[in-house]
Structure formats: C-alpha cells, structure tokens
C-alpha cells in the first residue's frame, strides 16, 4: 500500500472563552496514491481545519503527519513552502487566481516558481488547460471568465507541478448549479486518471465523486465508507423510474 498522506492523532485547538475549542480532535487517516477521498460534515465540524493541517497551512497542536513517508508536522514555514510547491496542489472555494495574470500565466506560475524553463512551463500549462477544456480561454484574465472556468483554471494550476496530492476546499462553494456540474465531471475525470485527491465539501454531489468518503463531526472522523461504483447501475435507475405501477 502506497500512502501519500498519513495523519495520526491530529489535534488542533483554538482558544475560546472558557475551554479551548477542539476544531480537530484526534484524527487518524490516510490517503493512498491514486485514490480520491471526500471529507463531508456539517459546517463547523473541523473539515476545513483538517485540510489546512494536511496542507501545512495551519499546524497541529498534537499528532503526527507524514507526506510520502516523511514526517512533516515539525517542518518550518520555509520547508513547508517548498513541500507545498513540489508536492501539494490546492483548490480553494474562492479560486485564489492572480487577477493581473491571464489564465495560462496563472497555471504556469507554480512551475516557474519551481524553476521550470518558461517554454516547458507554458507547454505544460496549455496541455492542462486543454485537458480541462478551458484552453480557448487561456489568454483571458480571471474576471473575464465564468465561475466554472475560473475553478477549472485553478484545478489546472493545482496540477501543473504533478503534485503527489491535490487538496480541494469547498471547490463548488462559489459556483452555480451548472458550473458545479462541470466540476463534478472534472473530478470524475481526475478519479479515472488516478489523480490522488482529497476534497472537503458539504455538497453531496461533490462528495459522491470520490472513491472513499470520510464523515466528520465535532472534529473527529465518525465513519468512512467506499463509494466505488457497484458495477451495475440498474439498481439506482430502477428506483428512479417506477415503471411497474399502472393506475
């Protein structure tokens, strides 16, 4: 088993009036190479904090975190910055694209920061935009793109350095139903391509695209289940259409 990310006993407390709040309260979990995992739970359950801990955007008060077998919970900010750039792609609810850069410039930026020759970075960025079907918008600025297009550009940017894992935080939170549909298809494609992905969401449709679902409540993972297709989809369809009933 090839585990890309492992967390053991992760705890993150925030000070509050009276007792500190345990936003993440003893999480054990692992993400294997090539699997897609969704984390679902009510708002305030700690799922976004968990994603921030996994990506080194916030740091645990207790527990251990491993990325590709290397212990990382004690890394400095500088070491984390390097690790993130090389190995972790992020997708955020609010896209976080650089407004002054075109779509393709946004996508190639992390590759350039890692020292890739500009020609290679541009080629890779264009390939990804094409794969995510937004290449015709490559030379547009973010504010000229629809929400769904912006998020596809953001996913392309997350993929440009061939990360070990992509972490997505409420990726459809700012999208309408149609754009959400585009992202669902995109995530299903990433799953088919065996891209390792962890997505935190309260949207059942997004959660349902994953191989595996973790349910969070009060800072802890209370259930996990596999969502892999059962092979025969007629089950859901028979329930969808009650053709037997005649009246």
């Amino acid at each position, binding site marked *: 088993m090839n585990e890309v990310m492992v967390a053991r006993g992760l705890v993150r407390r925030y000070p509050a009036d009276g007792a500190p709040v345990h936003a993440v309260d003893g999480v054990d979990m692992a993400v294997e190479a090539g699997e897609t995992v969704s984390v679902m739970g009510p708002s305030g359950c700690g799922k976004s904090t968990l994603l921030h801990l996994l990506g080194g955007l916030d740091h645990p008060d207790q527990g251990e975190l491993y990325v590709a077998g290397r212990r990382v919970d004690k890394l400095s900010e500088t070491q984390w910055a390097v690790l993130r750039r090389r190995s972790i792609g992020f997708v955020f609810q609010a896209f976080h694209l650089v407004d002054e850069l075109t779509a393709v410039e946004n996508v190639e930026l992390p590759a350039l920061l890692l020292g890739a020759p500009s020609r290679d970075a541009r080629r890779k960025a264009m390939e990804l935009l094409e794969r995510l079907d937004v290449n015709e918008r490559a030379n547009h600025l973010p504010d000229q793109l629809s929400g769904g297009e912006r998020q596809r550009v953001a996913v392309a940017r997350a993929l440009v350095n061939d990360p070990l894992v992509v972490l997505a935080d409420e990726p459809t939170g700012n999208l309408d139903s149609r754009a959400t549909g585009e992202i669902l298809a995109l995530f299903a494609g990433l799953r088919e391509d065996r891209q390792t992905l962890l997505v935190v969401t309260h949207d059942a449709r997004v959660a349902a695209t994953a191989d595996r679902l973790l349910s969070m409540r009060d800072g802890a993972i209370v259930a996990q289940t596999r*969502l892999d297709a059962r092979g025969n989809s007629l089950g859901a369809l028979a329930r969808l*259409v009650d053709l037997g*009933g005649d009246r």
Partner: protein
Amino acid sequence: MAMRDTILGLLAKEPAHGYELRTRLMRALGPAGGALNPGQVYVTLSRLERAGLVRGAEIEQTAHPDKKVYALTARGQERVEDWLADVTWSKVAPVEFHLKLVAAAAAHLADPVALVDSQRLELLRQLRELQDVALGEPAGSDAALLVEGAALRLQADIQWLELCERQWIEREST
C-alpha cells in the same frame, strides 16, 4: 408511473403501433428504460382498447405478420387533456423514513442518529451511481434531464437527513 396516461400521451402525436411507442418511450427514458418490462406497452395498449380509450386497426402486411395500429378515441383524447392539466406530484415528503426514526427512538430499537448515518451513506452511493450514469449520457438529451432530476432529488433528501441528524443529536444530548 402512470403507464396508461403515458401511452395515451404518446399516441396524441399520431396513431402508432406498439413497437413505435416502445421505441419513443425508451428514447425519453434513456438508461432508465432498462427497468421497462418488454411486454408492458402491449399489455397496456390492450387494456386501453378494452376501456374504449384507443382503437386498434389491423394493417395487412405481406412480408411480416399483420400489425395493429392504435389511435386515440374521443374519450382517449379527453383523458390526455386531463392528464396534462393534472398537477399531482409524486411523493414529496420522506414519510416512511421519518416514521421509522420516530418508532425506533420510542422503542429504543436503534439509535436514530446511526439510522440516519447509514441511510445517508446509502443515498450517497445511489447518487454516485446516478452521476456515473449521467456522465455517460449525451448532454442535452431528454434522458440526461431525467437523470439530473433524480440526482437533485437525492441531494435534497441527503440535506434533509442532515437536518434529521442535527435534531436527533440535540435531543440525545438533552
């Protein structure tokens, strides 16, 4: 589903034989049509004929066995109009699961929160199946719209289960 009304509605376009009706029905349902019993259209047509809502006429064919072409009668036409004007909607409230929770809690048969959890996981699996089916459907087809409708309803049911969970957790903690 009201198969009789559906068949009458399909005949409103023009008289047709059973096979044509079945083809049009399958196209509208797409992958959901797999649940359709092959003989169902023919059985329904003969019931409608007995009820005086359609009239069948045998067409002689030389190369094939004779086929029967059905047309709406005046009463059949009226019933189609009633069907179009009928605003009855199928099952809105998840009554059965609601009552299951209430009964299980009252009798201490099962933890309502655990029931909600396992039900939600089952609906998420169904949602996954539907989404996989939807990806295989050409965008903009009649059948894709049907699958989308089913997925949206499942999503609403899952949201309702989250409300159930919150309420039962609060009750258990008081």
